[in-house]
């Protein structure tokens, strides 16, 4: 999946609708990321210029918070919870199974075809269902290496079927 062609007009209209104040910067970045699936560097510069703050400040904020990504994320964003409860109930084997299943080498977080990206999150607050995996916004409770492999297969099959 190639990243969307960057039309910075969209960035401008996001800033206009959220409000041109530094206290809105995080909200603006969230909207921009929702639009482009990541934060393109051109967009960061544009935000800085338009809001009258230095691009370095914008970059600083964008890299501080784990929600923001400067790399394109996959169509299916897999969040593997590694909070305490999930960790104790075996989130590591689940994470390993996902990485192996997706063929991700060390240091890689998305598949070459752009279909999947993986990240670990520290707690999704669904500790009663540990270990938990979230794909896009759907929560998959009580995961095992086998169950998650099947889920990934199902998504792949569905994609290929289309």
């Amino acid at each position: 999946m190639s990243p969307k062609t960057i039309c910075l007009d969209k960035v401008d209209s996001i800033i206009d609708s959220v409000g041109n104040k530094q206290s809105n910067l995080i909200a603006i970045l969230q909207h921009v990321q929702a639009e482009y699936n990541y934060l393109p560097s051109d967009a960061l510069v544009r935000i800085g210029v338009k809001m009258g703050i230095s691009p370095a400040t914008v970059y600083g904020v964008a890299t501080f918070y784990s929600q923001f990504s400067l790399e394109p994320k996959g169509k299916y964003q897999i969040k593997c919870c590694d909070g305490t409860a999930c960790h104790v109930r075996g989130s590591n084997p689940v994470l390993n199974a996902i990485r192996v299943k997706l063929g991700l080498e060390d240091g890689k977080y998305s598949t070459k075809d752009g279909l999947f990206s993986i990240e670990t999150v520290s707690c999704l607050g669904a500790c009663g269902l540990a270990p938990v995996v979230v794909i896009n916004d759907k929560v998959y409770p009580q995961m095992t290496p086998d169950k998650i492999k099947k889920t990934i297969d199902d998504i792949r099959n569905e994609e290929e079927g289309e």
Partner: protein
Amino acid sequence: MEPNELKIREKQAESAEKIAAQGTRVFVCAGTGCVANGSLEIIEKLKEAGINVQTIQEKKMTVVPTGCHGFCEKGALMVIPDLHFTYTKVKLSDVPEIIESIKTGVPVDRLLYVDPITNEKIAKNEEINFYAKQHRTSLCNCGHINPEDIDDAVAIREYEALEKVIRTMTPEEVVKEIMDSGLRGRGGGGFPTGRKWMFTQAAKSPTGKKYVVCNGDEGDPGAFMDRSVMEGDPHKLLEGMAIAGFAVGADEAYIYVRAEYPLAIKRLRIAIAQAEERNLLGKNILGTDFSFSIHIKEGAGAFVCGEETALIASIEGERGMPRPKPPFPANKGLFGMPTLINNVETLANVPLIMLNGASWFASMGTEKSKGTKTFALTGEVNNTGLIEVPMGTTLREVIFDIGGGIRNGKKFKAAQIGGPSGGCLTEKHLDLPLDYDSLIQAGAMIGSGGLVVMNEDTCIVDTAKFFMNFTQSESCGKCVPCREGTKNMLKILDNITKGKAKMEDLDLLQELARSIQAGSLCGLGKTAPNPVLSTLKYFYDEYVAHIKEKRCPAGVCSALRTITIDADKCKGCTKCARNCPAGAIKGEIRKAHEIDQAKCIKCGACISNCPFKAIKEA
């Protein structure tokens, strides 16, 4: 003013009427946990199937989506209070039988809760041990109201305390009431709430502006009480904030919610809009001079933002890095103005205190820790979920009575309390009363109330490493001892779990821990070494086993494991090779297989899959 003269009385009567018109109410949990177990589809199907149904009580039925009931393990949960039915692990296919049970008044047997000890089936919610042994106050409405319908909130007297406060009390009286109640901050620090209010009330603002901020950045892994309140009973939080605003002289507030809680954000937005529509928030609340507006700020994933000055920086649109105190937020906080910051659970207790009185609240709990506390009970217990008990309840009651004991008949080893800032409690602490001061003495802390239970299969060093990995990656980098120290502590812990450490490293760990505690600005750094220090104190032998014997007693540390196939027992069924996630098992069909140790990730999938018990770990 007489209680009957309150304007809210009229609204309460209207709301109660609307609710009575709903007939027999069927509560289905629509909290994050139960949604994951398909509750939204169940709600839709029940609504469809419930049209024109006449219940045994000769009423119509109404499906009510609620917030978290706390018993997430048993989701999807359904409660029909009028019929005294509690259904657990409900699936979409159960809907027709459920409808039938509502018509006939005979419960669906297989959906009833089975007590893990007596094996008895229990229909009444209040008789299930998990609930019966609790004392729910801040969570009292979660699961019993529709969080997206303000009528539900008003009918059970929410916003009554707010009107009572603004019409009949002075701000000083409100602060005194909170002081007298003995309420302490529920987010971790345990600072007396009344004193915080007093400081903010007394602070002079250069422009007259003051703010209230609700800290909903529940970042402790393993804690989800704030999520439950925001999702399940948002109006109670809004009411608590408005009372706080009146007390300290603020007319504007922010709720900082972590972005990982989309449902909480949605429900809060709905609740704010509905409250404004009914004039319970916004300009001139209930015709008085008091105005109060609440905004929502979404966090973006940074644990350190749970620290109040970092949270303020984040609301201002900056990197969430802590600022030195003093000045305290009470004097110079958000946008430089006096700011009151309280946690969600703290604020949720406020309306109840104002409604029932400080002495009611102070009658619960221990001498120095008043009221109740929620705990997110997770890990290796039978009943995981969210619970609320009076302060001073013992760990044993929580784990064995409410939690139903350890899963799969295993042995209790330790409980980790207070998240990455907390510590481990062991068997000898089982009769320790859970309150602020006892826990500090035991080298742990109540923190936000995350309580993760571990059994004999949990490696303590691995757990300490887990927390250190967390704090290390969440350290904002401002203070060198925290930034570099946590990295080095993590490195040492990693070496220990890989059998590469020396005994001297244990001394180094303690030395680093002391430096980080002394040299960090905020709570994150000051408490980051706690999990290591408390495990070193109580499980020293386990560290030594890793270092001297290169052995992980719990069999968790994978670098210290070798998995092999017994060639005599292996029948060559290929099942292990097919299930190996790393492709590390090779062999011909009907011939003994072998594990490539270089590829093996030691996950143990082969061991549990082998039908011939031919795979062993050494």
